[in-house]
């Protein structure tokens, strides 16, 4: 806490820094989308909507210390909202996405309010029930939600100003990427604000936090709502990019893999969420290609990707207990130390700094 308070700065500078970072990332995304092939643009779009969800989940689990196994279902709320509004009501994209955020935040308020009364495995259990139960609603009301088959919408049309040969996949990458940038900007600000600190305070010690005058339940609900809103936007972007909302897309496996990706990427860190999104998008394809590059019997090679996924998870957790971002951070710290020793700095003092620096990262505490 002390370290976090010591780092308190005028809010404007955090704001500007987040804005600059988001703009920089935007330029990087733009260049990448221009360089990449159509399929990789689609991967980029998928990575972006996963990032949006993971950014929210990493704040919830990493910062406020609540576990959710129900974020796949929250994505479904966002996806169905967008497909219904765009498909049936012919809404424009941006208002439909805004509506997806609001609807999911509302659902998140209800789930979150219930969640504040639960701790640890009970909270996980409650959100798990939510993840299993919610997609079944689509089957319950097939006339609205299209049953097991789900709903389909038309792909977004790139503005005519971009030319008729502008690839749809790049346009989808831009849409999803823009969503990701907004989330980077907002979440970076949030985690460095008083609200972010109250999340951490509640996570670290609820009694101490309430002695400081924080309403623990309210703070936890707020964290859940923020995270749900992200999941809603992510789900909405999924619906736009893939043009679908179907129960089969939001099964329990999705919720579990989201949590896995957050932990694997580095809990509590937005950069970790980028790693997590990359893992979600790229690992299945890689492990699949790997599995089929050997001439194994089909039963083995079909199931090998799952085994590879599990193996990567185990190895990553053993080597980098604080996720990929934790590993990267450690490598950077070591590299910096070597560099400074070489130019003749005072290593002890700097080392002290770097541990302080890490204290702000929740997964290190």
């Amino acid at each position, binding site marked *: 806490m002390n370290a976090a308070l010591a780092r308190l700065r005028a809010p404007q500078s955090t704001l500007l820094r987040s804005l600059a970072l988001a703009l920089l990332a935007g330029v990087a995304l733009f260049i990448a989308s221009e360089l*990449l*092939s159509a399929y990789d643009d689609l991967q*980029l779009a*998928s990575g972006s909507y996963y990032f949006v969800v993971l950014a929210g989940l990493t704040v919830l689990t990493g910062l406020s210390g609540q576990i959710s196994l129900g974020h796949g279902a929250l994505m479904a709320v966002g996806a169905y909202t967008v497909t219904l509004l765009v498909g049936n009501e012919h809404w424009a994209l941006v208002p439909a996405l805004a509506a997806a955020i609001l609807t999911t935040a509302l659902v998140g308020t209800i789930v979150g309010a219930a969640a504040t009364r639960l701790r640890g495995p009970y909270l996980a259990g409650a959100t798990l029930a939510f993840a299993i139960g919610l997609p079944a609603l689509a089957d319950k009301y097939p006339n609205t939600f299209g*049953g097991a088959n789900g709903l*389909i919408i038309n792909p977004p049309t790139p503005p005519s100003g971009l030319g008729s040969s502008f690839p749809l996949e790049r346009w989808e990458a831009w849409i999803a990427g823009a969503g990701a940038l907004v989330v980077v900007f907002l979440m970076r600000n949030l985690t460095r604000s008083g609200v972010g600190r109250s999340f951490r305070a509640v996570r670290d010690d609820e009694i101490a936090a309430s002695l400081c005058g924080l309403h623990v339940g309210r703070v936890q609900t707020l964290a859940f709502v923020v995270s749900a809103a992200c999941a809603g936007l992510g789900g909405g972007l999924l619906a736009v990019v893939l043009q679908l909302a179907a129960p089969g897309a939001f099964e329990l496996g999705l919720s579990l893999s989201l949590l896995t990706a957050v932990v694997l990427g580095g809990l509590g860190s937005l950069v970790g969420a980028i790693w997590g999104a990359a893992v979600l998008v790229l690992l299945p394809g890689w492990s*699949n290609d790997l599995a089929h590059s050997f001439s194994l019997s089909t039963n083995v090679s*079909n199931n090998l990707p799952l085994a590879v996924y599990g193996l990567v998870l185990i190895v990553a957790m053993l080597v980098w207990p604080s996720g990929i971002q934790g590993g990267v951070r450690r490598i950077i710290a070591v590299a910096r130390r070597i560099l400074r020793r070489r130019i003749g700095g005072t290593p002890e003092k700097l080392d002290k700094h770097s541990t302080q620096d890490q204290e702000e990262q929740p997964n290190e505490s």
Partner: protein
Amino acid sequence: MRVDKHKVRAVGAVGALLVALVVAGCGSSSSSSSSAPGVTATSITFGTHQPLTGPAAPGYSEIAPASQAFFDYLNAQGGINGRKIHLIIKNDEYNPTQTVSVVHQLVLQNNVFGIFEGLGTPTHTKVVSYLNSSKVPDMFVASGCACWDNGTAQPYTFGWQTQYTIEGKILGQYIKQHYAGKKIGVFYQDDDFGTGGLAGIKDELPASSIVSAQPYQPGGTNVAPQISAIKAAGAEVLVDFTVPIYTALGQLTSFTLGYKPQLVVSNVGIDPTTVGGLLKTFSKGKAGTELIEGAVTDGYLPSSSDLSNPWIALFKKIHDQYDSSAPFDGNVEYGMANAYTLAQALQLAGKSLTREKLIEAVNEKGAQLTGPGLVPFRYSKTDHGGYSGVEIGQVRNGKIVLFGGPLVTEPTSGAPITPYTTAQPAPPSSGVSVP
């Protein structure tokens, strides 16, 4: 120092983003500028999305490898029009999100000529519009949904197997003729498969005779509520429009409830090898095919256990040579028969092949395509539906025996059911026959 560190972190974050992007870019291949992707003078490449793992995998995961085995057999003889046929199989786990992703990968990255035998209704419906707007041939979808049968709006998509509504009608007529006056219960999958089949049955049977129709959602494993409701309604005939897992679960539940109706099952969910294996697994070896013994079903292909049929003998030979790790069952037969149809369509499309020429060939001459099917295809410019009927069959001694001759009809309500009497052609000694 502080500011420095922040800079370092900001640069680190952007760096991580860039690395992720560059990594994402790896493995991308430049798209070919040729007018017909995926085809050269010596090869043609198709892609497919299949449930190799997940809830729909049992049985269905054998289909695409069997198709591949048939292509291997053809390729060993020189292929079609001098081109070897390659099939890239991608696992979509029966998850629509994955289907969209792998189909884009096949089209954009693997540059396939077309998609072949994409499996499943909830999955394939999500890529039909993409494939048609990209003008990619979408050949012979592995699902009997009526949704593929729209040559006007979806000129690049073709169904293959008999539509569920046609199957339901013919099963309904059989029930009307042989179980007259009995109470009927229907246990069906709550999607186009189940509802299409139910619509066909309702077209033939008086509404009052169907005492209970209970849907299930794929994914759950408890079907006791549905089966109990059908039992409580006093149904004497139980019609299943189910995939193999749910046929097995339904029969196990019926058995534990002491409920023994006459069973009627769609050809989709009755393959005795698959269902028997599932029954054995679920009951830990206590039950097997005896729980589906006597079930009435149908087929648009000869029964895979009828080795006296020359087509089955041919498929068995190919299976033993190229695909021996899989059991020889209805799924393997399905994959090979569908592959035969594709090979024949490619033959029809001629030597100078383009995507449009393949579509045109099936539109114009598709109705003349022959092969292992017991009934003719319904292909025309507007009609992209696939096989036009089925022959009734029954599970006897754990094998499907077809009898009574093939029947054909149209999916439209009230269209008459007529016998089809043209005999099945013999398979060619090599390659595919030219229609």
